[in-house]
């Protein structure tokens, strides 16, 4: 399913690319539900299909451009990607098998969370409990990152507007 979408995403029309990106996001969210990650899927759907496609489309609207054809044949990137892929596939052999309760990744702190989240925080949704309580530092840092990114975007986009106003005033003065 996901493979299909990915195989397609090399269209040249940028609008088509963004559209397929949105569709891909929906499918990805469905896969995440199958993998039991309900909260993650909700966020992925909202963020991937909703917000980021709106932003990408707004920027496309501003920029108005089709992708230029590639100038050189992408041999080197191809080789790099194939090498990386080969190395990663080789690496997967050692990863724990899919779906086993006894895998090392499920032994560390997760059982503690599952057992104790209910009576320590009164919150049946373990994800929320861990997110806000046990790993509060992570989330605080993450909120700060969003805050910083918002400020960054505002600075980048507002700076020019002021300059443009100045130019307008100058033009007005000159006229």
């Amino acid at each position, binding site marked *: 399913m996901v493979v299909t979408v990915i195989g397609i995403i090399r269209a040249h029309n940028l609008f088509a690319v963004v559209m397929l990106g949105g569709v891909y996001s929906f499918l990805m969210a469905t896969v995440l539900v199958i993998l039991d990650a309900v909260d993650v*899927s909700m966020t992925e759907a*909202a963020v991937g299909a*909703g917000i980021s496609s709106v932003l990408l489309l707004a920027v496309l609207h501003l920029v108005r451009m089709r992708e230029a054809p590639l100038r050189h044949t992408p041999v080197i990137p191809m080789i790099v990607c194939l090498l990386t892929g080969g190395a990663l596939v080789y690496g997967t052999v050692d990863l724990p098998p899919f779906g086993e309760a006894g895998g090392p990744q499920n032994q560390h702190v997760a059982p503690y969370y599952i057992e104790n989240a209910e009576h*320590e925080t009164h919150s049946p*949704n373990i994800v929320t409990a861990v997110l*806000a309580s046990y790993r509060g530092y992570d989330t605080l840092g993450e909120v700060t990152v969003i*805050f910083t990114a*918002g400020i960054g975007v505002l600075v980048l*986009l507002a700076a020019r507007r002021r300059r443009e106003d100045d130019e307008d005033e100058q033009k007005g003065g000159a006229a």
Partner: protein
Amino acid sequence: MRDTIILRVVVKLLLPAILIFALYVQFHGDYGPGGGFQAGVAAAAAIILYGMIFGIPAAKQVVPPSVVFVMIPLGVLIYAGTGVAGLLLGDNFLDYSPLGSKPVYGQHLGILIVEFGVLVTVSSTMLAIFYAFGGRADEADAAEEARKDGEGGS
């Protein structure tokens, strides 16, 4: 897009539904899937929808940029302030246990407040970013139309 009455009416009908759904996701996040991030994004999406149909200026009347700019740091402050409150009440930073009469209630309350902080920051940041990009797009539209009019007139 501006002159389609069907879109306007349906969006007006849907807007409160999306906002209420966002609140439901926010405060039901303890019991079902959901939480601050999802609710924040959904609430921002509602305003973004409004802004896309009725134009950014109309959306800016609903949620003025000044409010948005205050809300972005406010969310971070709520979050950090909850942590500091725990610190002042004699526990570790971001430990909510002393907030309630019993540690369990304190934890629950702390989670709610913190999620609210996340909601405020996420939704207002998304809105601010949308205002920045969408405002640009609208300006470009206006410039384009002005140019077309000028060409038509000349």
